[in-house]
């Protein structure tokens, strides 16, 4: 019973990781940029979610605003920060990204205050029994939301023209362009989708903790990097599996290794172990 409960808790956490990491892996696959500032959009998504829910009482409206708004902001970050740096070595964009992320954290603190903000009447806080285990509605929503959103995205990339074009661009940008794929548009779409998903994760975390703080993105910012490496950089399915697996491993690790290893260290211990055995990542093609 305890094992099942830990498994569920791990999947909840894993869904959050997955929603954040998907955007990162899309960007990496396309541009070879490690987009650290992505976690800033996750945090801002949380802020917008709480503020709109508090103002209107509607969580659905909050999600409907937060996701496209962060999607657009993601595109704006790409156009203003990364696009001008595309010809430079990748670490230049990485440094720009880290700087942007620090700036965002401090802006959140200045604008929204150092204490963080909470829902005045947090939605989805009732408990429901799932196969004999009590879960908060918010936890259930996180799991289902994560699976539906990422599953939907995977379907889109497999079944639609834009998806095919996107995959073609990842594999060989020059060839895709020669076949008439509008690469600039594909990049915009990837930033939009990835950032919108990160925003949904931000709102979910706000619901789970009833707290959005300026530094909420600092752990996900680097842990998501570990996840996309595990998943095989740029691989959507691998990222999803790695995120869920890490969530579950952390859940068990917190209880059984907690006195030896920090929860946040588990991700990196796992990363090191995997890289020693499979340097191309869990699902990367050697």
């Amino acid at each position, binding site marked *: *019973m*305890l094992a099942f*409960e*830990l498994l*569920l*808790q*791990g999947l*909840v*956490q894993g869904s959050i990781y997955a929603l954040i990491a998907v955007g990162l892996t899309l960007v990496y696959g396309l541009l070879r940029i490690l987009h650290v500032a992505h976690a800033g959009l996750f945090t801002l998504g949380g802020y917008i979610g709480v503020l709109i829910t508090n103002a209107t009482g509607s969580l659905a409206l909050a999600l409907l605003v937060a996701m496209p708004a962060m999607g657009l902001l993601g595109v704006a970050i790409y156009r203003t920060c990364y696009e001008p740096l595309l010809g430079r070595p990748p670490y230049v964009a990485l440094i720009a990204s880290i700087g942007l992320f620090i700036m965002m954290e*401090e802006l959140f*603190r200045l604008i929204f*205050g*150092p*204490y*963080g903000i*909470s829902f005045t009447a*947090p939605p989805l*806080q009732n*408990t429901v029994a799932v196969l004999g285990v*009590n879960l*908060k509605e918010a*936890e259930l929503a996180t799991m289902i939301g994560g699976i539906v959103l990422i599953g939907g995205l995977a379907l889109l990339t497999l079944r639609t023209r834009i998806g095919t074009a996107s995959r073609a661009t990842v594999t060989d940008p020059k060839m895709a362009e020669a076949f008439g794929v509008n690469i600039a548009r594909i990049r915009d779409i990837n930033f939009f989708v990835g950032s919108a998903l990160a925003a949904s994760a931000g709102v979910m*975390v706000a619901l*789970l*903790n*009833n*707290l959005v*703080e*300026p*530094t909420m993105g*600092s*752990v996900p910012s680097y842990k998501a990097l570990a996840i996309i490496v595990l998943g095989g950089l740029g691989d959507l399915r691998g990222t999803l599996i790695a995120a869920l697996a890490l969530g579950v491993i*952390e*859940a*068990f690790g*917190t*209880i059984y290794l*907690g*006195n030896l290893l*920090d*929860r*946040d260290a588990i991700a990196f211990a796992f990363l090191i172990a995997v890289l020693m055995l499979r340097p191309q990542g869990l699902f990367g093609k050697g």
Partner: protein
Amino acid sequence: MQEKLIRTTAFAALLGASAAIGLSGTVLADSVKIGINVPQTGFAAADGKSALIGAQLAAEQANANGGVNGKDVELVVYDDQASPKSAVPIATKLVEQDEVKIAISGSYSGATRAAAGVFQEAGVPYISAFAVHPEITRSGDYVFRTSFVGEVQGRAGAKLIGESLGKKKVTLITLKNDFGKSLANGFKEAAEKFGIEIVSEYEYSIKDRQFGPIVAKVKSDAPDAIYASGYFFTAGPLVSQLRSGGIDVPVIGQEGYDSQKFIEIAGGASEGVIITTSLDRDSDSPEAKSFIAAFEEKAGYKADMVAASGHTAMKVAIAGLRKAGSDDPKAIRDAIAGLTLEASTGTISFNGLGEVRKDVQVQVVKDGNWHRHSIISDPDLLAPPEK
């Protein structure tokens, strides 16, 4: 032409402004400077804000009452980001450049401990408002502390659970830093004395907000009470998740919870949570009452332990300056060592190591506010370390 005129006017205005600043600077030169290092940015900025407003309030109150030895008190504030790396240059700057005769810390243990060494070396009295690490006062005889060390508060927690509440099977959920660890040590030290059996202990890091796995395990441990260390931003999500996980045994915390923000985050789940702390909201003491009212007016939000501690530390510094009657650091140090003072955190005095002696205030959340639960007044149990 027009543009040039505007530019010249603007320049003249700036010049005038800087002259005015220069002028006020000379007026202020006849003031007593008190240094304070406090986190204004970074993860501890929230506590830093409360501590600073508390300290400013104490300075304003002193200035309204004739200042110190005929001079106004002036705060010299530096942002240390709660980082030891920044605290050392700041302490050096306060001593060498600002030439303060006394300073206080409104920061966490890491930064305070690092700065304490610099002040001790320079022979400038330094008062830690709420940092808990035992090594801080061991820097030397110029370093004082107005808050409990973690161990003392941990022992008080054991008495509260084992004796007052009569709960004997306890699970510890410990924040993995100097604050949480020292609380847990104090708790374990006194547990046997109060017949407490510790059935399990889990640790978490300061960045954790998701406690699902711990909640699941605690449920299967079925303790009579939970002693959980943390700050409002970890304890809020923790308590909320414990309750929604179906655990309804008493949760006992400490001064880290002591903020209205804890109640806001945990919502209904915060009802009945009991903590050991330094600020009694239902106090009859005029000092505490007036502080609580004045702080809320100045800050725009309710007073918390950190605010009261910042206020108390500044009050001690001012009382030391007044009693010494000079700006000789040695005289100020001796004055502080011999003080007995009514402050917002109770009647305080210091032992030979510079550790505070005061009662532990036990507060409980009732109807969305902190209220008095009881007071632990047991000098033997609460004796701070002497060396």
